[in-house]
């Protein structure tokens, strides 16, 4: 579903943000990207939805060669990918319903489809009863659920999450992660860049660890800290 081969990104000032990334993510996978701030987690996600282009290397997302995509084709790529951010990026002057519908309308969808799809995703994220409220009237967790609903309304095969629980308290964090898990179980490929140790350790999913723009480890059922699993096994 997602494939990166020899991907490097060098800024004009010479800083290497990403260095020789090779990564394969299969359909329906759930992958955590972990690492210190500034190690390139967010940058890697940005390359996937073509917010940035790599200096060298090949990127394929859902069969689309991303790095050589023409500017006019970028919107088509984005419709295949849902993106969720730490700061939600909701429009504050639009209701939850409008925020979600907006993502469909910009693709030129029929009103008929909007009326059918929006309630479906709002129901999925558990916000049907708050669809007429504005983002400012919602809790952080609810805002993030609204953002997830917006990301999903186009039925993307891939959901990219950049620190989705960064602004949330532990109980909201748990809710969001459970929601992501449910979405994953329906077959959506999910990539989550996170700092949250508790989330990663509890979920026991594939963990790709970045350091200084390189992939240092890639574990099938990993922990946030390298080797923590083994030490826990030893101590337990």
């Amino acid at each position, binding site marked *: 579903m997602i494939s990166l081969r020899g991907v490097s990104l060098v800024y004009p000032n010479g800083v290497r943000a990403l260095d020789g990334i090779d990564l394969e993510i299969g359909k329906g996978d759930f992958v955590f990207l972990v690492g210190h701030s500034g190690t390139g987690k967010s940058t890697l996600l940005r390359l996937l939805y073509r917010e940035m282009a790599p200096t060298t290397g090949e990127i394929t997302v859902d069969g689309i060669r991303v790095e050589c995509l023409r500017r006019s084709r970028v919107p088509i790529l984005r419709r295949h990918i849902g993106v969720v951010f730490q700061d939600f990026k909701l429009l504050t002057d639009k209701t939850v319903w409008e925020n979600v519908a907006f993502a469909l309308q*910009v693709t030129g969808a029929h009103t008929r489809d909007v009326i059918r799809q929006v309630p479906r995703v709002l129901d999925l994220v558990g916000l049907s009863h708050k669809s007429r409220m504005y983002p400012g009237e919602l809790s952080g967790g609810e805002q993030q659920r609204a953002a997830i609903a917006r990301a999903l309304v186009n039925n993307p095969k891939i959901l990219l999450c950049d620190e989705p629980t960064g602004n949330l308290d532990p109980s909201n964090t748990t809710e969001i992660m459970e929601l992501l898990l449910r979405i994953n179980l329906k077959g959506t490929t999910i990539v989550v860049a996170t700092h949250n140790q508790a989330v990663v350790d509890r979920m026991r999913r594939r963990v790709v660890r970045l350091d200084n723009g390189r992939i240092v480890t890639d574990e099938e059922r990993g922990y946030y800290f390298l080797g923590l699993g083994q030490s826990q096994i030893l101590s337990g």
Partner: protein
Amino acid sequence: MQATAIGTVTVTIVLLGAFLYARAVLVHFGADVLNQIEISAYLQDGTSPARTEAMRAALARDPRVLSVQYVPKKEGLQQLRRRLKGEIDTSILTENPLPNMFRVRVRTPELVPAVAAEIRKMPGVQYVNYGQDVVGKLLQLVAVARRVGIAVIALFILVAGIIISNTIRLTVFARRREIAIMQLVGATNAYIRMPFICEGLLDGLLGASLAVAALEVGRASLVPRLVAALPFVASNVVNVNLGSLVPQLLLVGAAVGLIASWISVGRFLRT
């Protein structure tokens, strides 16, 4: 913000409109003067009446000629006396220095030089005058006005475009979050551009409409007073109205708004 853009277009189009109007008046005035041009053909003394009549008949037959009037020297002197009355003592004109002459009027001012040249070649014609200097200068003036006009108009439109484009850029900047989100969820650039283009178009049209209204009010109140104050201004200037300028100015306003917003949004979308 929007008021700034509309106001700028209004001011620009008022200036542009006033300029174009003044030019139209000048052209109208110039055409008026040119239409009154007549060719004076002075005959050699001693040209026989038969020869004179043959010339008159030949000129009257010419399809380019509107009218031919024969002015014998006696009548010419009377006319001169009448014209100079009160200015100089006409009693000193004891001898008649004037030759017999024809006054010839042609259908369009452009025909004057050619017809004058032909008359000059006729036997018995001593001298032809149609105010060569004045006509030449007038034609030159109109040509210069036209050239300067195009430069000034281009400058005006450029300035208006830059200001609208800056205003739209501010609007775009204020809505950058919304635009970023639109791009994120897969909106095409055309879709994102549309509302801004519409806004630019509307700003331009609205500004131009206000300008046209202001120009019409200004023209209706100022021009008659101007004509009353300046007696040498032909009163038919009052009849020059905005007419065909109105759609032109509206079109300029709309085009400037459209192009300026297109450029400013485009620059933002590329980053």
